[in-house]
């Protein structure tokens, strides 16, 4: 649905994007994670060409945006919704006027516009607030207006730059719930940027982790979790650096059998549990355990764990 390849962007001496490839599939929620200054916003803004990459191409819903002229680009943008960290609502317009804005730009007639605005406000849970001004709304409500506005052009793709980072945890959760239901019910593809692990955990199907203008790793969450040395896994489970010989086990789904006690019995090893957690992700539940295994048939025990489908990483 969104495809970017070879994106490079310089700001003076700063390399904001250093050869980024991105592929977001239709109907998924794709999260971009990374430290401040990693280039996340620049990447997102290159997707709808708010920022022109110095080189590389961007294709959204089969149209290569980087080839389009100004008028065609504006038409394409009408099918790409965008949600902003600080809402970016027009103070001079009412809530309904803000949602109507993109429809006016698209040349939708008055009656159809009013009807569509009412539907959209209903959809985001703000039916009846159309006549208010944005300043009369809470942060979460403002973001709902922002989302309604982004959906006005019936977009196939929604871009979101830190849509929840100005909100408190409870409000964040309700906005994430809204995004998720839009994704499920309208089949909306969502590309979102966040620095909150919580957002990734609760709604993302895939992620990319950025660092210094590059994507360090990307893919489906389940797939990344099964990849040894994954940064994503480390971000989700902040365990301390392992000492030499310590073992980190990662498992997806709830193991039917008590694997650990089985290993102890079968291979005569001592298990010392050093830390761990289980996380419920949108992609399923994942557990990670840091242990020390000693004595008996240690190597056979590890092989057995691998055979049982656990990811086994031994610190060297």
């Amino acid at each position: 649905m969104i495809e970017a390849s070879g994106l490079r962007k310089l700001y003076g001496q700063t390399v904001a994007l250093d050869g980024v490839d991105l592929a977001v599939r239709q109907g998924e929620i794709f999260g971009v994670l990374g430290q401040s200054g990693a280039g996340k916003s620049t990447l997102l803004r290159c997707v709808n060409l708010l920022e022109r990459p110095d080189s590389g191409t961007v294709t959204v819903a089969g149209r290569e945006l980087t080839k389009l002229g100004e008028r065609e680009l504006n038409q394409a943008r009408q099918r790409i919704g965008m949600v902003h960290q600080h809402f970016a609502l027009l103070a001079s317009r009412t809530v309904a006027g803000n949602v109507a804005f993109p429809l006016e730009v698209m040349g939708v007639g008055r009656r159809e516009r009013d009807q569509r605005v009412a539907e959209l406000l209903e959809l985001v849970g703000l039916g009846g607030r159309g006549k208010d001004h944005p300043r009369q709304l809470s942060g979460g409500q403002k973001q709902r207006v922002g989302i309604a506005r982004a959906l006005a052009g019936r977009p196939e793709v929604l871009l979101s730059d830190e849509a929840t980072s100005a909100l408190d945890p409870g409000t964040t959760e309700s906005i994430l719930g809204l995004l998720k239901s839009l994704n499920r019910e309208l089949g909306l593809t969502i590309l979102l940027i966040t620095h909150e692990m919580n957002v990734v955990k609760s709604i993302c199907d895939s992620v990319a982790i950025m660092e210094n203008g590059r994507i360090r790793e990307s893919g489906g969450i389940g797939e990344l979790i099964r990849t040894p040395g994954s940064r994503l896994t480390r971000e989700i489970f902040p365990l301390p650096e392992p000492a030499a010989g310590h073992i980190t086990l990662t498992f997806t789904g709830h193991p039917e059998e008590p694997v650990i006690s089985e290993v102890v019995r079968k291979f005569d090893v001592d298990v010392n549990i050093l830390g761990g957690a289980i996380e419920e992700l949108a992609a399923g539940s994942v557990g990670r355990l840091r242990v020390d295994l000693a004595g008996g048939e240690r190597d056979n025990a590890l092989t057995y764990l691998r055979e049982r489908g656990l990811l086994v990483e031994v610190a060297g």
Partner: protein
Amino acid sequence: MELDEITPLLWQATGETAVMVGWATLFTVLLGLPLGVALVALDKDGLRPMPALKGAIGVVVNVGRSLPFLVLMIALIPFTRVVVGSSIGTEAMVVPLTVGAVPFFARLVETALREVGRDVVQAAQAMGTGKLAIIRKVLLPEAFPGLVAGLTVTVVALIGYSAMAGVIGGGGLGDLAKRYGYERFETGVMVAVVIVLIIVVQLIQSLGDHVARRLSHK
């Protein structure tokens, strides 16, 4: 002079000032608003970057701003004569008043437009809004309270300029003050002119503030 002698003089002079300032305000908005928009839109990170043209406009505006009104008015006499056919009288004064106020107002428009958040403009761009529509539907409406405040300041400045214009032969309150207060030592007229000016400026300022506040939804 008695009050019933002063009153008709005051009415007439106030009327002349109103005519001068009214026309000058109209032309100032018609010319200054587009100029102010141009100063923002042509900026290097504006909607349509043309830094060289923007620089040129900026220089012209600054030249206009740096000339004291009295000097500008005298320097413009030949130009005024071409435009209006005469260089004295209420009508003629509209020309230097406008020329003096346009750069002033253009800068205030520029400042008001720059107050509009970048994020709102970018949000509009992300929705596929064309440049003219961004000016019409985003920049101007969002900056409207600021534009009204700028206009208020400009009208008050124009009243000040118009008094000076009156001294050269434009009529109005300045002319009245000069003829009676200065040349004939009629303190009563002088005081009356001062009072009228204070009241008018107060009224305009309050009206401007009120409108700006009503329109502001920040």
